[in-house]
């Protein structure tokens, strides 16, 4: 049966004129001389990440592991908020007293829209580009949870921070098949006279707590 699929594949085979048998050896022979490994030690890496996050206008707070709870409390209070949404798998030990945290069990989009914000961890962070990677759904929850609310507080642990994009992709490749979102600063547009305006859709305010 001469379906669209068959016709297109045939046109491709007629056009490309290459041997299927050569594909794997060709693939292995591709020249990749770009950087793939890290050159910075942990401290330099963390400083670079913070620097890049600042470039994007994200607020970054640093704390040690035992102080995480307190850091979360002071950041939320600093934003004059009292209640945040959280993904179901968020470690409960992160949550300080005195605030309400509502786990996402089939929240409606309207409820997300009406919330004060969301608190999550992350899957990894990439220092060179100031990127935070979210893994859905276990981990950082479903995608809409970190998209609809206007405020996102994200916890990044030092041992989750890699330096380069290739390292980051290698980590991401391990999460087979689950949706991934990379975040490098709040959403922005330069569509109006090339003036960069932050906060189009997606959370307009991003706070990061870096835990060492």
């Amino acid at each position: 049966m001469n379906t669209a699929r068959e016709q297109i594949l045939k046109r491709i085979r007629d056009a490309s004129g290459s041997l299927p048998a050569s594909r794997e050896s060709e693939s292995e022979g591709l020249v990749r001389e770009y950087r793939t490994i890290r050159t910075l030690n942990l401290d330099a890496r963390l400083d670079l990440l913070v620097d890049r996050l600042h470039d994007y206008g994200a607020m970054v707070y640093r704390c040690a592991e035992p102080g995480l709870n307190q850091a979360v409390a002071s950041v939320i209070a600093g934003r004059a908020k009292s209640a945040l949404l959280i993904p179901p798998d968020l470690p409960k030990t992160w949550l300080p007293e005195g605030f309400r945290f509502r786990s996402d069990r089939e929240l409606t989009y309207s409820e997300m829209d009406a919330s004060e914000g969301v608190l999550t961890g992350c899957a990894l962070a990439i220092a060179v580009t100031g990127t935070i990677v979210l893994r859905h759904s276990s981990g950082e929850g479903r995608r809409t949870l970190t998209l609809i609310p206007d405020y996102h507080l994200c916890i990044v642990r030092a041992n989750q921070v890699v330096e380069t994009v290739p390292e980051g992709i290698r980590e991401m490749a391990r999460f087979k098949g689950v949706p991934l979102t990379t975040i490098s600063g709040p959403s922005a547009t330069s569509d109006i006279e090339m003036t960069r305006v932050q906060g189009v859709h997606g959370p307009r305010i991003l706070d990061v707590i870096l835990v060492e």
Partner: protein
Amino acid sequence: MSVRVGEAARAPDFPRAAQHLLGNTQLRHNVRQATNVIRRKRASVVEELPDWQALREAGRQIKQHTLRHLDFYLEQFELACTRAGGHVHWARDADEANQIVISLIQARHAAEVIKVKTMTSDEIGLNAALEAAGITPYETDLADLIVQLGEDRPSHIVVPALHRNKLEIRQIFMEKMGLSDLGDRPEDLTNAARRYLREKFLRVSVAISGANLAVADTGSVCIVESEGNGRMCVSLPEMLITLIGIEKMIPTFQDLEVFLQLLPRSATGERMNPYNSIWTGVTPDDGPREFHVILLDNGRTSVLSQQESRDTLNCIRCGACLNACPVYRQTGGHAYGSVYAGPIGAILTPQLQSMEHSQSLPYASSLCGACYEVCPVKINIPEILIDLRGEVVERGDAPFSERAVMKAAAFALEKPGRFSAAQALARVAQVPFERDGVIRHLPGQLGGWTAVRDLTAVPKRSFRQWWRERTRGNLA
């Protein structure tokens, strides 16, 4: 099969379109400002990477390799995506793709769709087809929203509303969003767009997107964006339809490490753009329950069959060539009469459409090479332009007067005796036009030169005449 690239088949030829646009000082000013900004940003983030050239070379090689084995990678993608709960459709041309989209939407009895920026949908004329079928498409990229509400056409691959200033945009928003008052700062306009679109994001059940990259081994799709409307469209609705040109394929997930470095730095001059969404098929309890991919040919297999110019398909739609191009800088994108403008548009449009249309596009270049210099996947655009010019001429489509002149010139240049005679002839022919060594006016097509420039008159003695006399000892 009927390949369509937007309205390119009916567009006026480039010189005429350009002439008209050159008079628009607002446009020229906007384009110059915008390209200056993006050029500076791009240069800055590229300089930061000591391995930029290695990344470009890897990008080129990966793309060329994928195109050589495109059948394998498309089938691999189809299998992986289907296993993950997605549906893969194949469309030979624009009409077929539009038909598939419409059928899928009608099967849900939906009458509205939200769209993420995708030039592929402009290429196939999707919006017009949807509207004809009684389905209303809402563009959600701010620039595409501006273009749609302004009933206009995009003028740049990455910044489609480049030709509009904020006051024009304010006017459009107030009118089309029914706002009685609106500030004119970019922040005010952006907020208005946010409110207007949020209502749609939370309500509309079908979304249409394109894809920047499709990963063959995992069956994953990647969207690269800044505003968050992409994230909205691919995760909120119940059904997602993604249009993917077959050339968007890359072999492995790991290959993202190359393209996610090349694309943001080239497109917007950022180390990384704000949001990338990567998903595979369908995920229970997270995002659309139904996911459809439409793999689109629409002339790409024709380009694939041309060994000389196949590299055209390496393109990752970054727009860096537009920003670098001194011709685009003067005219903006509309002059190219196609959704694909600038240097890449000049080679892609005529090849997709076949050379009956868009013949003037390969000549819309001074062959300066700035595009090749910045292309992250090393497409040798000047080389391909010359190739396409060769095709125009060999098909017999060059203007008769030009062919006559070029043939006469070739005849004269083949032998030294003829050449000297032609030089002597030029010295005589110029007499009515020459004064004090300068020609100020020429008739016919050559008048294009003298309209704005003087022309050096042919000196009385050519170099070879001087040399001959010198050799004979007449000069020291």
